[in-house]
Structure formats: structure tokens, C-alpha cells
């Protein structure tokens, strides 16, 4: 029987600095770990512990897995000290992936804040693999400063993809930054509050467009409010919920939110699912 708690030994094959405290690691698991965009894995640093991460790599690539990770706790700090050739453990995947079949023929808004773009990257790459199936892909990304932007090399390439736009902002004015300034919700300013105008002229059809959102809890809260104010269907707004999943199987209780276990029923939850909670983020 497959042991659900057995971490698969995975060798660190490459480490790339994204920002001063964010790195992208490429792991080669001893046996392929297949996942769908939106699912997460538990990563072991031997002797230190486990922490949950959503892969950043293309789910259609199974031999290796990339995860973009910020140093923020014991596991990630220990990981940051590891070198190419060192071994970690990966178990999973857990949770539910995005239903990409349901995204077909629609406009897709992808909103990331800070390192929150990392989990969305696996979704973006999966969408790019079937780019003709989607009406439009709009990637909107906010970082604190220009130095905190992840995937600096990839964002310009993504912009070149068919039917794809990339909008960026940083929180505060900075001498090196010529673009938009303001927290990430300023990137929703082109969406009108009222939807009485002709849908054809809108950047998105709020009734059918899909939003996939990942970032710090405060960002999810305000993007959620913003999109609902702009008439988006709560069934079509997908939030990556942040919780401290421990077991990954809906047993240990850490990630419970009401009757949901975020690790099993999420980690992606719709605005409709979280609407009944006072402060879901």
C-alpha cells in the first residue's frame, strides 16, 4: 500500500536567487511526483521538519519540480542553507487542483502579491501549454519594491505570449521603477464598478471571467472585496488559502476553516465557499 506520509527523496538540482530572501529550487524526486496546478506538497528538510508549498513548475513536467520559497520559518531557513546535490523529501500532492476544463473559453485574471506569484506560476505554465483554449490571460502582479519582484526574467517573456498581458505595480515609489505604483488592488482600477456598460468594451466579462488570486491574507481580502464590488461571480474567484497544513489529509485539524479542511477541500477555495466566514483570510 502506498504510504501517504512517506516523503520521496528528492535531490536539489538547481537553486536560483529570485530576491534577497526568495529562491527557486529545482528538485528531482526519485520517483515522479505528479500534481495538478493548485495542489500542494509537503516538503521535508530532514531533521528540521515539513512545510506545505505549492509547486511553481509546470504540472506537465513530472521528472522535476520547482518550488519558489521565501525564507520565513524554520524549514525555509534550513532549506536556504542547503546546496545543489543535497536531499530533501517531498510527499503529496494534496488538495484539489484548479478545474482547467472549466476555464476553457474564458478570460482568466491571475493576481499575485509578493511570493504569491510562485504558486500561480504552475497555473500560468499549465495555461500556456493550451493557450488557444483560453480567451485571455491577464497576469497582474504586485511586489513591495522592484527588488522583491520574483521571476524578473520570466515576466517579460510571459508578456510575449498570445492573448496574454502582464501588469505590474510596486507598493511605494522607487527611483528604479517607471511603472504603476500602489498596492496590488490598483491593478483592478481598469475594471468599472458598475457593469451597465457594454460587456464587449470591458477588460473582463464579470459574469464569466475567472480570477485566481494568491498573496498575503490582507491582499486576498481586498482583491476579494474589489472583484465582488465589480460584479464578479463569487463562484469564479479562486483564492489560494494560506494555512499551516500539517498532515495534508484532512485529519490533523490545523487547517480547519468551518467544516472545510483547507488541505483537502482547498487549498484553492472560491469566494462563494468562503463567503459565510467572518474573516476567512
Amino acid at each position, binding site marked *: *500500500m502506498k*504510504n*501517504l*506520509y*512517506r*516523503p520521496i527523496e528528492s535531490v536539489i538540482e538547481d537553486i536560483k536567487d529570485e530576491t534577497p530572501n526568495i529562491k527557486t529550487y529545482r528538485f528531482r524526486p526519485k520517483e515522479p511526483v505528479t500534481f495538478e496546478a493548485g495542489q500542494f506538497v509537503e516538503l*521535508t528538510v*530532514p*531533521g*528540521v*521538519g*515539513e*512545510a506545505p508549498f505549492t509547486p511553481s513548475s509546470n504540472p506537465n513536467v513530472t521528472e522535476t519540480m520547482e518550488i519558489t520559497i521565501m525564507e*520565513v*520559518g*524554520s*524549514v*525555509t531557513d534550513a532549506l536556504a542553507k542547503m546546496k545543489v546535490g543535497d536531499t530533501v523529501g517531498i510527499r503529496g500532492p494534496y488538495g484539489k487542483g484548479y478545474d482547467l476544463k472549466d476555464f476553457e473559453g474564458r478570460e482568466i485574471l491571475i493576481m499575485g502579491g509578493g511570493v504569491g506569484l510562485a504558486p500561480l506560476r504552475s497555473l500560468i505554465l499549465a495555461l500556456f501549454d493550451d493557450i488557444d483554449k483560453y480567451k485571455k490571460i491577464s497576469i497582474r502582479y504586485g511586489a513591495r519594491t522592484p527588488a522583491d519582484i520574483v521571476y524578473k526574467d520570466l515576466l517579460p517573456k510571459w508578456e510575449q505570449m498570445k492573448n496574454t498581458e502582464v501588469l505590474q505595480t510596486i507598493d511605494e515609489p522607487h527611483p528604479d521603477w517607471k511603472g504603476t505604483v500602489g498596492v496590488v488592488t490598483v491593478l483592478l482600477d481598469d475594471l468599472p464598478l458598475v457593469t451597465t456598460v457594454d460587456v464587449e468594451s470591458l477588460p473582463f466579462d464579470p459574469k464569466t471571467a475567472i480570477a485566481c488570486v494568491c498573496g*498575503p*491574507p490582507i491582499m486576498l481580502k481586498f482583491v476579494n472585496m474589489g472583484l465582488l464590488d465589480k460584479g464578479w461571480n463569487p463562484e469564479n474567484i479562486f483564492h489560494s488559502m*494560506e*494555512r*499551516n497544513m*500539517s*498532515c495534508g*489529509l484532512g*485529519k*490533523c*485539524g*490545523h487547517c*480547519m*476553516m*468551518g*467544516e472545510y479542511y483547507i488541505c483537502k477541500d482547498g487549498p484553492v477555495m472560491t469566494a462563494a465557499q468562503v463567503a*459565510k*466566514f*467572518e*474573516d476567512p*483570510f
Partner: protein
Amino acid sequence: MSWIVKDASELVEFLRTKGGVYGPAGDDRIVFDELGNGAPPNLSRLSDVSARNVFQPMTHYYLRFEDRPDTEVSFRDYDTTPRVVVGLRPCDVAALTVHDTVFAESGSYRALRDATAIVGLVCPAREEACFCDSVGVDPRSTDGMDAALTVAVGGGYVLAALTDKGRTLMSGAPFPESGDATAADFREADHPVLAAEGVPEALGRLREMEIWDEIGFACVNCRVCTYVCPTCHCFTVTDEVFGTEGGRAAVWDSCQSKSFTKEASGHNPRATKPARVRQRILHKYAYYPEVEGALMCGGCGRCIKGCPTGRNIVEELTLLKGGAAT
């Protein structure tokens, strides 16, 4: 088939020929532990701590390794040698269905359960904190028991084998047949009970915070309610290294702990006491029922007896139900 057992320690001695025997042990503080020969289970009153540790070890190292580069990682399942648990009462046996449900996919748990025979105790008396029948548990029920002890008139117990597992367990029993021995009457107690009908539905509407401030006011975050409870099952996965040896353990944890939901980023979805108090009560009486169709409570009352500040779940549910109705 049923027998007369005059002395519970003789029963333990006999059962120890069939496997490890666990039961309520101790006098001042009764907890479930392995019983040795001549060690009678303390059946005089409900144990202070549930038998959860028999079915979910407090700390289970499921992975062991050594602190060297080419270490072999070894996995350890639960101990699944045959064993008998003596003295589980109907509330505890009912509560065990929660673990059976939550850990149904765990091969290790299922093997442990298959290897375990339950010699229950039909409840002789209602104690001060009991509210089993409020949550639909009959204190005289033998449901889920492989064999059942009933206090007999004139002392000792009538022991009945109820399932194939129980009959196998009792084969070769050196006890006289029960004949016309009769069970002692259930001793009632006079204390308020909860009208549990409609509680899940009522609580399902109680997501706002004000009422939880009031409910949780006396809580001192000690977590004892979750550690004595037979239906609580939350745990944490943690790595520990001792010298050159290390391991990964599943360790009991509690939703009443502030760090239970704290993330590495500092974000804590249940940072306040009312939010944690709400989580415990709603998980047992609203969330679990919504998903599984049954209350996550056997009505044993250990959380009431164990609470150092005198919180009482029966009173709280009654208040909450009333609060939701208005």
C-alpha cells in the same frame, strides 16, 4: 454466552493470555494504561482521561532516521499485536466511532482496531458531569463492544460475549456461567441535562463573535478539555533529533492552543481566544455533524470535570442554542 466474574483482576489475568490488556488504572486520577497481572482495572467511576491514547498514541514516531548523510529512513506502523481494552463505557465506545471515521483511510489505524477487542462496561451510574443521553448515547448500550461487563446484584460482574471477536476472546474462560445472576439497576443522578435536539442546526448559525466572548471568558487556554476528550483527534507532525538519532512523530495537539494555527509568516487565522473556543465547540457540534451526520461527542463530561475554571459544555450549548434561537 455469559459468565460471572467476581474479581476484575482475575479477568485481566485471563485476558492477558490473549494479548496486552489496557484499562482504567490509578485511584486519584484514572487514566487508560496497560494492566499487569493482579492489577485490577479501576471501574469505580469514569476515568479522568479517555482511552484516546490506546487508539492514538500521544507521540508516535512513524519515521526514524540517523543524523548522517546516507541514513536509511525506516517507517513504523502502530503496534498491532493483539490486545484487549477493558472498561470502555458506552460514551467512550460511541466516541470511538469518530476515530474510526476520521482515520478510516489509515491502514495502520485499521490494523490496530482489528487487533483490538473491546470488553466494555455497561454504565452502572450517572455521574455528576454525564450527559451521554443528551447526545443520543444510551448508557446501558453494548453497541460496539465485543464483550460487555455489567455490574451484578450482589457484587462482581456479568460478562457477556457479544461478537465473534468477543466469543473467541473468551474461549477457555475459567469463570462460572452466569446462570440467573441479574444486572444491578442503573443509578440515576439528578442534574440538568442538555436538550441536544437542534443543536447542530442552531450552532450552524453562530458564527458571529460576541457570544463567543462570553462563552470563552473563563477559558485559560490550558487545553485540558481537548486532552481528556475521547473524540478529539488533532495532531501535529514534528521532527525531533536527539544526538545522532532523529524521528518524525505525530503528536497530539489542540485547537485551543494559540500556536495551533500560527503560520511561519506570523499570520494566525485563529489568534483570539473566542475564535479558538468557537472552533472546539463548533467542530464537535456543528462542523463534524454537517459532514458526517453525527455529533462529535459521546457525552462523557470529562471536559466539564477537567476544566480548572468550571466551564460546562452542557450549559454553554444550552446558552448557545438559546442565543441562536433569538
